[in-house]
């Protein structure tokens, strides 16, 4: 509960100049609205005139061949892309009506609302408990009882509680790859985000672990908006509501997943999903 208060306060600070209520009302179901986004790494033009509206509480898949900009776009949504020093962007992305690329929007706030799960499971070399408690702790929660509750709730949320409840004090690197990735998802849930970005979360996992993560994504979309980058087209078809097809830094097609996979309007989409390239 106190975590929620913290986040509301963060929100208040940021909305001082914007009439939040009206903006949220106007974009009721849109969580991210991207307008004419362009991004360069140094001289390389990596994203070109991206326009995408991403709905709340849906799974949006981003597919495309290597180097098409899909991961870059995902990392722009929580501004992780800024860790590359030479990055430059133009255009606008709004998150629930607030312009997030604006330097006045603190990235720490953004990343508290927009969590991220990475390609390779990346738990900290700490205990399972400390991994989950990491986020709440950096946001100022010290109370042991509240931390305990958050840890249990997050691990249950990621369907890994039963597997780890007796070994919370053990190092997270004792878990299998698939368990580590679910732990990382639980760690993201612990900051109580609205959106979860997933950057090829199953590419380092075996088929069985992959299936577990896919089931988990289906459960999570009841409460969270999920944007998932994947190389695996079957995966996109299985778990997403909408799919965006990226090619050479552009959005070629963005539609309901069924439409993309059954009757795409663009030839390049059809070529890609039928395996003619990529």
């Amino acid at each position, binding site marked *: 509960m106190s975590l929620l208060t913290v986040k509301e306060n963060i929100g208040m600070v940021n909305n001082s100049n914007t009439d939040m209520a009206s903006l949220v009302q106007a974009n009721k179901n849109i969580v991210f609205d991207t307008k004419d986004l362009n991004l360069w790494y140094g001289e390389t033009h990596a994203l070109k005139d991206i326009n995408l509206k991403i709905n709340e509480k849906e799974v949006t898949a981003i597919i495309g061949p290597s180097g098409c900009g899909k991961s870059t776009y995902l990392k722009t949504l*929580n501004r*992780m892309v800024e*860790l590359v*020093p030479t990055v430059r962007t133009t255009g606008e992305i709004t998150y629930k009506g607030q312009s997030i690329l604006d330097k006045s929007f603190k*990235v*720490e*706030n*953004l*990343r*508290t609302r927009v*969590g*991220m799960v*990475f390609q*390779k499971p*990346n*738990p*900290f*070399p700490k205990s399972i408990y400390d991994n989950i408690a*990491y*986020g709440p702790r*950096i*946001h100022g929660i010290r109370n042991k009882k509240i931390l305990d509750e958050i840890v249990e709730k997050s691990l249950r949320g990621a369907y890994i509680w039963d597997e780890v409840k007796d070994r919370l004090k053990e*190092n997270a*690197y004792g878990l299998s790859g698939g368990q580590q990735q679910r732990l*990382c998802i639980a*760690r*993201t849930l612990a*900051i109580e985000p609205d959106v979860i970005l997933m950057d090829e979360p199953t590419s380092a996992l075996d088929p069985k672990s992959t299936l577990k993560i896919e089931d988990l994504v289906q459960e999570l979309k009841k409460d969270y908006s999920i944007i998932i980058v994947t190389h695996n087209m079957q995966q996109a078809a299985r778990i997403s509501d909408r799919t965006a097809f990226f090619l050479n830094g552009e959005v070629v097609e963005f539609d309901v997943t069924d439409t993309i996979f059954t009757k795409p309007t663009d030839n390049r989409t059809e070529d890609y999903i039928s395996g003619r390239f990529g």
Partner: protein
Amino acid sequence: MKYLNAEQVTKRMDGRIAKNNILKVLFLLATLFGLIVLAILIYRVVVDSIGWIDWNFLTGRQSTDAERAGIMGALLGTLWMMLVVAPVTLILGIGTAIYLELYAKKGRLQSIIQTNIANLAGVPSIVYGILGLTIFVRAMEMGNIILAGGLTLSLLILPIVIVAAQEAIRAVPGFLSEASYGMGATKWQTIKNVILPAALPGMLTGAILALSRAIGETAPLTVIGIPALIIPFPEGIFDKFTALPMQIYYWTIDSSLVAEYANLAAGTIIVLLILLFVLNSAAIFIRNKFQQRF
């Protein structure tokens, strides 16, 4: 058509194998050269010191009478000086490494600083002695006290500590800090909770090895005028002092006057070697014990 003629290949085979064996022996000799010289050195020192290292030698005062002379003063001087060098180099070294690796913008200024630190690591130690003499002993009017000696040696090993700490930071995988940033942590929170715990064993190992180099340094101390006179045991960092390498230096020089001084020097070398051995073991222990798996 084949490019390799089987007959020719077989004919050359013996020569190739012989060359391989000769080189193997050459490299072994290169290794042995260093090892044998070192072994002879240690053997000579041990032989010379036999019968000289006893309780009286370890705890006694400096004396012109070889039978009564002890090294307690020099031992205390060295330990006090390390109490100055260790915190100064750790704080400044790790602080500098954090700034250069994690905060500084990669650019011209950063690369100029970086190049200069690398160059400073190669500056002869006697030059640092002159620097210490000019700044600490004379300009700041400290005189040749422990603090002045400690700060001089700190300057000497600081570049090594910085470079080691930078390498330790660079060895922390990026995916760990990404995970922290991805949850809304600030840079300092990420450094404190993720990067430093992972890098600390490497940093400490580098610092301890640098410290053991400082312990053996003689030249800078000679320049700032550390005596080997009969002076009271130092009781703090503002006292005048002598140190183990200085004691070795003076006893070796004076062994032409009193032959037994050579044995005293050998005994002091053994004590210094044991000290270094303990420090290096500590470095290895820290590295193995606290290294994190990821």
